[in-house]
């Protein structure tokens, strides 16, 4: 790997952390019995870690999408089908059996935001939901009628607020995994209709 690529990996693409592991475990458990040929989209795939786990551990076909050009390149190099996309905008109506998303969720003071790819991967705006809310508003369009969304949410963002917002868009929610850390509790929500 050249120096320039190394820089890509270290500073421009979110690398797997506790949240990624929790989300991958939960999604793989639930999708282990998925039909061959069912379609799973990971939004904001970053390094491609979660999509790669689903690809390895389930029968589903996985698409890895990200806004960040460095991330989609890294996902493709990891052998995944990659698409550069803004959330679910370029996916066809009802085409996906599951959508998995570890969103940028840290509440951020607007005066403290730093304008680079890593900030975009982490910052959820002032309330932590600047990306989650538009995602919830559009994901229903691309999801098959019996499809599910697996969404990672932190206590820093407010799980109840996210469940309420999902409800506004016709989703029921169940917590399928959670794990506590010193400063936050991470929860994987399954959203379904």
């Amino acid at each position, binding site marked *: 790997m050249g120096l320039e690529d190394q820089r890509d990996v270290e500073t421009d693409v979110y690398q797997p952390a506790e949240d990624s592991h929790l989300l991958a475990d939960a999604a793989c458990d639930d999708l282990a019995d998925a039909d061959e040929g069912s379609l799973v989209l990971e939004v904001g795939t970053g390094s491609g870690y979660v999509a790669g786990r689903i690809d390895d551990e389930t029968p589903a076909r996985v698409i890895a999408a990200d806004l960040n050009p460095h991330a*989609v*390149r890294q996902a493709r190099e990891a052998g995944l*089908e*990659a*698409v*550069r996309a803004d959330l679910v*905008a370029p996916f*066809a109506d009802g085409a996906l059996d599951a959508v998995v998303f570890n969103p940028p969720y840290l509440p951020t003071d607007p005066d403290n935001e730093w304008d680079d790819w890593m900030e975009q991967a982490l910052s959820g705006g002032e309330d932590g939901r600047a990306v989650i809310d538009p995602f919830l508003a559009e994901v229903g369009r691309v999801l098959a009628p019996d499809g599910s969304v697996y969404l990672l949410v932190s206590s820093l963002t407010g799980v109840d607020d996210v469940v309420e917002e999902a409800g506004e868009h016709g989703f029921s929610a169940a917590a399928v995994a959670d794990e506590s850390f010193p400063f936050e509790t991470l929860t994987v929500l399954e959203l379904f209709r």
Partner: protein
Amino acid sequence: MQESLLEILCCPLDKHELELEDADRDDADEIIGGDLVCTECGERYPIEDGIPNLLPPDMREETPA
């Protein structure tokens, strides 16, 4: 990208179907270059190094880093 991916993609602006033009394929028949063109509005989305860039045109140039 695999050609079968086209079935689940659409124009991010108006959600109409996309058509593949000027496709470059590798030995495994994977599409590594070309354009995806909206059948309704005619907007073109480039495929570069096997990755379709389906960002709306106004987001394509926004590069924070």
